[in-house]
Structure formats: C-alpha cells, structure tokens
C-alpha cells in the first residue's frame, strides 16, 4: 500500500465528503414535508430537539464536558427571541433568531471560564446552577417574563415578510428544518477541521494536547460558546414557532432529557443527536398514550437500564446496526473505531 502525500490527502478528503447514505438521510428528512402532512407539529419539535442535542454533542461527545444545565442557553434565547418579538424590537424572525443565538453564545462565553475550572463535579454544579439561576430570574421578574403563565402576546412576523407561521405548523416545520440543516452543515465542517480534531484530542488526553502546543482552555471556551449559541438557536426556534415561552425552558428535566436523547442516539458522531431525538419523540408519543402521567418514571427507568447494561455495549449495538446499514450502501459519518482493518486510502 504505497503511502504518499496525495493518497493521504485523498483519504482525508474522501472521509470528509458527504456519503451517499448521509445524502439519502437528508433527502428523506426534507421529503417528510410532503410525506407526513398531518404531523408537522411533532416533527417540528423533533427537529428543534435534534438541534438542541447536536449542540450538546459538540461539548459532550467531542470535548468531553458534562453539562447538566444546557437548558440555560435554550431558555435564555427562548425568552430573548420572545421578548424582542413581543416588543417589536426585531421583527424579522431570521435576524431575531441569529441575535438570540448570539446572546446565548455570549452566555456560553461568560460562563465557560467557570465551567473549565475544577472537576467533573464542579462542572455539573456550575452548569446546573446557572440554569437554575436563570430559571429563578425568569420566575422573579414575572412582570417581564410572564412568570409561571409564560410569555404572552408574542407575535412572530412572517419570515422575509412572506412566509407566515400557520396553525398547522407547515411553514414552522420547513423553517426549523432549514435552520437545523444549516447548523448541521456548520457543525460538520467544524468536526472535520483541524479544530475539530484538536477537540477530540482534548477529550482524550488534555495533558498531551497541551504538550503539543494546543491552547486547551482557549479551544474549550470556543467550543462551549458555539455550543451555547446553537442551543440558543434551538430555543429561539421553539419560541418563534409556538409564539410562546414559559419557565419550563429552564427546567432541569429539559437538560436531563437532552442527556438521555444523546445517550440513546450515541455521542461523538454527529448523527447521534438527530437519531436520538427521533427515537425519544417516538418513545414519548408511544408511552404517553399508554401512561400519560408517568413518562418521567419510564425515562428514569431507561436511563438506569442503559447505564447498568453499559453505554459502551449500547453504543456497540448502535455501531453494529450502523455497520450493517453502512454495508448496505455507502458510508455514514465515519469513526476510525473499526478494529483491525481500519479504513485505508484504497477502500473501506
């Protein structure tokens, strides 16, 4: 197997290219707009959850930061986008969404310094604490936020002045899908870039990363900020598509359920959040029809079982299913985790 600079370049380039399976995936996703016309609302919620999970995967799966309070970004941007719509500060939803994302990213930047210090426990503390503090603030200033009743009177103007948010959620769903896709493309670029590779090295061995010249903290601050921003965009989407925002955007349940979504779907390979979101929503729908009130019990049960069985084993099953699908046609986003015959420049 002759190794030359060109074949290495070719290998790396091919690895980063969109595989046929990925393309098929996204074609199918967009086709759902026409395939399931009665299900826009739940599909839209799934898309938002997928984006939210993708943002957490960036820090959890790629940088190894455990966050128990990702809802902080979701909620902050959610309220922000609601308020600027309500008071007519920014009327164009797309611009409002970007601004909300930036606000959440700013929160990420500010709090990243706290999150980087100390152990896993302090990280859990800090992230949890921040989401609780924000929730408390939203509760306290109910004259602005509407408190427990939620933010009322949010009026979202049509996108580009043309596409109105209708009751069936048709435009809302397309809007959410497009936003999800754009964010996904950006995250995908990050993951395959030198920056993304350095993140994976940070997660595996921060000592060595520092010893080869990587400014560890700077990278972590950067990715935490981006992650916060994306989570914020998800939160803004929710407010814009429902014209409503309430205190539960900050709830611990939201952060905990997000972790579950990622665990179900698998971390560190981009599609985990998306697949996890679909499975989670499906489960929620199914269990809600069986035992409406005790969804929380079953979530807890699933979490306990997954941990006891072993996440690696669950991930192994997911990986086996993926391998199977991969062999059926094309390549999914590749992880160099294949034992023995790792993919070489001349083929799989």
């Amino acid at each position, binding site marked *: 197997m002759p190794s030359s600079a060109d074949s290495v370049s070719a290998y790396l380039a091919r690895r980063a290219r969109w595989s046929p399976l990925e393309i098929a995936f996204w074609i199918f996703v967009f086709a759902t707009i026409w395939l399931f016309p009665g299900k826009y609302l739940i599909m839209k919620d799934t898309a938002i959850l997928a984006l939210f999970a993708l943002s957490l995967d960036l820090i959890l799966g790629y940088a190894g930061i455990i966050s128990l309070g990702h809802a902080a970004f979701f909620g902050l941007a959610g309220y922000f986008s609601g308020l600027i719509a309500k008071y007519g500060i920014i009327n164009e939803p797309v611009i409002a969404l970007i601004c909300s994302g930036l606000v959440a990213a700013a929160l990420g930047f500010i709090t990243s310094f706290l999150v980087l210090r100390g152990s896993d426990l302090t990280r859990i*503390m800090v992230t949890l604490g921040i989401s609780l503090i924000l929730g408390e603030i939203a509760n306290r200033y109910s004259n602005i936020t509407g408190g427990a009743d939620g933010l009322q009177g949010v009026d979202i103007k049509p996108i580009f002045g043309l596409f109105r948010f209708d009751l069936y959620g048709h435009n809302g769903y397309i809007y959410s899908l497009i936003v999800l896709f754009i964010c996904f493309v950006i995250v995908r670029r990050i993951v395959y870039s030198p920056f993304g590779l350095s993140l994976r090295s940070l997660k595996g061995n921060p000592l060595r990363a520092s010893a080869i010249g990587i400014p560890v903290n700077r990278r972590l601050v950067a990715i935490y900020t981006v992650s916060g921003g994306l989570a914020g965009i998800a939160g803004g989407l929710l407010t814009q598509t429902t014209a409503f925002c309430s205190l539960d955007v900050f709830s611990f349940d939201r952060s905990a359920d997000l972790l579950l979504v990622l665990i179900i779907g698998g971390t560190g390979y981009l599609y985990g959040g998306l697949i996890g979101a679909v499975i989670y929503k499906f489960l929620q729908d199914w269990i809600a029809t069986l035992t409406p009130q005790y969804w929380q019990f079953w979530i807890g049960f699933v*979490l306990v079982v997954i941990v006891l069985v072993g996440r690696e084993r669950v991930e192994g099953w997911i990986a086996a299913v993926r391998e199977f699908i991969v062999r059926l046609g094309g390549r999914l986003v590749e992880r160099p985790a294949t034992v023995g015959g790792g993919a070489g420049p001349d083929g799989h």
Partner: protein
Amino acid sequence: MLTILFDGVAYGMLLFVLACGLSVTLGLMNFINLAHGAFAMAGGYCTVILVNRLGLPFALGLPLAFLVTAAIGALLERTLYSHVYARSHLDQVLFTIGLVFMSVAAVDYTMGSSQQFVLIPQALQGQFIVFGIGMSKYRLLIILVCGLLTIGLQLIIGKTRFGSRLRAAVDDRRVARGLGINVGAVFTLTFAFGSGLAGLGGALGAEILGLDPTFPLKYMIYFLIVVTVGGTSSITGPFLASILLGIADVAGKYYVPTLGAFVIYTIMIVVLIWRPQGLFARSAAR
C-alpha cells in the same frame, strides 16, 4: 436579628444532616449521587405514613425514618450502586438522575402530588422567648438533634475502629484493602448510614422545607452546593459550609426578599471561582 441567626443556624444544621451523606459518598467512593435527595424524601414520606396515618408518636417516627431509609440505602447499594462505582462520572450522573426520576414518579403515583405535613406533637409547637429572642421550639429540636448527630459523627469517625477504617478507605482504597479492610462492607455501611441521615433530615425537615414529590429535584442543588463549598475531605467542612449557607439563605430572604434566593447561588459561584476544590477542603483535592 438574632432570631434570623437562630433560624439560619437551624436551617444550616438541617442542611448538614441532609447533605453530609452525599459528601462522604463523594469523598469515599468518588461517586456523584444525585439521587441523595430521594432518600431524604423517602424518610419524610415514611414519617408521614408512620405518624400521620399509623398514629405512631413523632419521637418514634424519626428514628424509624432513619432505619427504614438506611435499609433502603443498603439494599440499593448492594444491588444497584455497586455496579456503577467504577464507571465514569457521566454514567453515575445519568444513573442517579434515572433513580431520581423513578422515585419522584413513584411517590407521585402512590402518595399524590400535594405537599405533606407531618403531625408535630403539641409540645413542639410554638416558641420560647429567651432574652427577647424568639426561638421556635421545633427549630430548637432541629438544632439539638443535628448537633448531637454531628458530634456523634465526629466521634465515630475519629474515635472508633470503623471510623479509622473509613478514613483509611477514603484516603487510599487499594492500600486499605491490602491492609485487610473490607472496603465493600465499609462502603455499604457508610452509604446506608448516609442515606439514613438523609432520611432523618427529610423527616425533620418536612415542616421547614416542605415535602412533596419534587423534593429531590428542588433541593439537589442545595446539597451539591454544601458539598462543593465544604469539600469532601472532612466532616467539619460541610458542617461549616451548611451553617454559612443556612444563615446566608435565611438572612438573604429576610433582608433582601427580591434577591434572597440568589444569595446561595452567588456564594456558590464566588467559591467556585475562588477555590474550585471547596472552601474547607484539604489542598490535595481529587
């Protein structure tokens, strides 16, 4: 003002009894048990059933809450927790969150979602006026009971053989095993004891903190703050941290009502910035 101090001390000592089990578990087994609050809730509901429904005297309800919760703790430790000790922190977090969700939903299902009140005996209602300070009798009881427990804990850890085994196991698990200390048994006993204390705290605290199925989630952050600020390498650390937080919270809510809840959060953040390993921890932090 001294009443505020008194109330704050009572609240703080209650927090300590509730949280010290968590601190020991974390320091001993490097295990993040977010379900700790569930044991407190169990103790509270246990007392509610025993005292309110079965008519047992309050004085009996408290120790029974301790025993029942300790038993549950020992059972769960042997059957479930011990499988998760060696796992990553993320796994521990997920596991214990799962347990919290299950326990919250289970209690909601069996006992309903409304707040429960323990029937407090007549003798404990009302307050003493001592030197112009209003001391609620119930809070006085809390201070007494928790104070005795704290002293007892210090004695057990410092003066008994079990205590030295525990300290050895905390310091270095492998070496302790090599010395013939049955580390597994130490873990189980300690976990059971810590859970029992949480249960007792939950029973005592039902009157002050409010008891409903969301208790573990509501108070999770408080226990975590106590452990973070106080560190996990001693008993005195969390004790002082609890008192500090108790007084700060009560005083904050009284003097600055609009921002009262933020006092605790602010302290937490300040401490985390200044001393990430805790205010009172040994410098050799894990």
